[in-house]
């Protein structure tokens, strides 16, 4: 194990990590923007509305992300119309293609998670909101969604970590993110252990940060479930009736 080689590779690997993080962040934001309406419709919509969403979710969950990335990057270029369209300067960039595939993939998973969370909102709370005279929109905005967003956090954090690992596939379409950079360095130095383990450590660190952020969000959003500090009775405060 050549430690100096490991340390020398860190700056270049970190440059790759920045690309990885950029891709991950954009993926999760775009994925969530798509998933929010889809998840609400998937949970509440009629059969005709649910069917296409079900197909979308099933396709993206049932096929490998690698195939999805290849369909966008190599597949779309097959069509003359795409190559002559105004979007072509964008669609030939590996970053944009990886982003499209990852965001759709992420949207499908998040839609499913959100649907599960919406269905897990206690029926009594929805009933109480209706009894208070809230409109269907108000019930969703004030009761169902805030509760569902908190309930979905643990599953969503798993999805985000899965997506972080998914971004490594962008290296197969020549994007120089963390895995891509590591692979390039290995090709020139041929010391796979040092470089790949260093890259793995960086991925582990990112995973750790993501997990911590979600743990914090979960904690911050469950204020009403924590006992109040002032209300917690200490043994000497407890007075017995006799």
């Amino acid at each position, binding site marked *: 194990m050549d430690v100096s080689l490991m340390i020398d590779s860190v700056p270049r690997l970190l440059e790759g990590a920045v690309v990885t993080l950029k891709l991950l962040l954009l993926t999760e934001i775009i994925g969530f923007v798509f998933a929010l309406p889809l998840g609400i419709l998937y949970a509440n919509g009629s059969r005709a509305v649910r069917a296409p969403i079900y197909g979308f979710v*099933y*396709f993206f969950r*049932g*096929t*490998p*992300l*690698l*195939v*999805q990335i*290849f*369909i966008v990057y*190599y*597949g*779309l*270029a*097959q*069509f003359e119309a795409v190559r002559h369209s105004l979007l072509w300067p964008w669609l030939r960039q590996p970053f944009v293609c990886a982003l499209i595939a990852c965001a759709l993939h992420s949207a499908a998973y998040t839609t499913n998670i959100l649907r599960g969370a919406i269905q897990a909102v206690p029926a009594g709370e929805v009933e109480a909101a209706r009894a208070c005279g809230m409109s269907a929109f108000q019930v969703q905005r004030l009761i169902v969604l805030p509760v569902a967003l908190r309930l979905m956090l643990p599953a969503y954090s798993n999805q985000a*970590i899965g997506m*972080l*690992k*998914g*971004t*490594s*596939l962008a*290296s*197969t379409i020549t994007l120089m993110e963390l*895995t891509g950079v*590591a*692979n390039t360095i*290995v090709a020139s130095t*041929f*010391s*796979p*252990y040092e470089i*790949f*383990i260093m*890259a*793995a450590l960086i*991925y*582990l660190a990112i*995973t*750790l940060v993501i997990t911590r952020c979600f743990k914090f969000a979960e904690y911050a959003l469950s204020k009403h479930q924590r006992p109040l500090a002032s209300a917690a009775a200490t043994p000497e405060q407890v007075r017995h009736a006799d």
Partner: protein
Amino acid sequence: MTADLFQGWGTQLFWGTMVTLKVAFLSLLAGLAIGLAVALAKLSSSRLLRVAGDVYTTCIRGTPELLIILLVYFGSTVALSAALRRIGGPDTHFEMPALGAGVLALSLVFGGYAAEIFRGAFLAIPAGQIEAARAFGMRPATLFIHIRLPLMWRYALPALGNIWISLIKNTSLISIVGLEELMRVSYVATSVTRSPFHFYVLAAVIYLTLTIANSLIIDMLETRANRGVRRV
């Protein structure tokens, strides 16, 4: 119609799919064994084994599968070449077969996830069942095989089904190191026929068929594992 659909690549795609299934099943078997061993290590009374198990699952679950495949593939090539030189073999470049490296990498990944599932499932077994088995005078080995394993299996199956589906999808990553499975065959087909969209969508449909068929099989296994559970 069919000739047009596969553009003469039907046979290759079929054998590619078979290789995909072979890799998946071999990794499943090895991965289940690794998962069980690591789960038992994490539940053991030895602190060293527990820490080792925790480090293993954390590392595996926090690194991308692609990186693990690359590490195992290139790493084992370097290690085997060095080992060959040390025992006085020829100074050649020994290349690890892609199948072996892929199966090893994917079973390490599967084992890491399965270990967490098995651990949870072992902990979910009601204490009364174990107590009853002891009261019958079962030896620890008998208790493990006849009580713990079948009960654990019932709790573990739904989650195991999920990682089995991911494993099938992850086999596509071995195409990166050159194994001639479904994804690689599609890649070769696209470079000859120049219709990438057609072949990658075809590959996606084949993967989709595999995952749907396997979820149905898992549903059947779950029904069978729960045949002793009374429905209220």
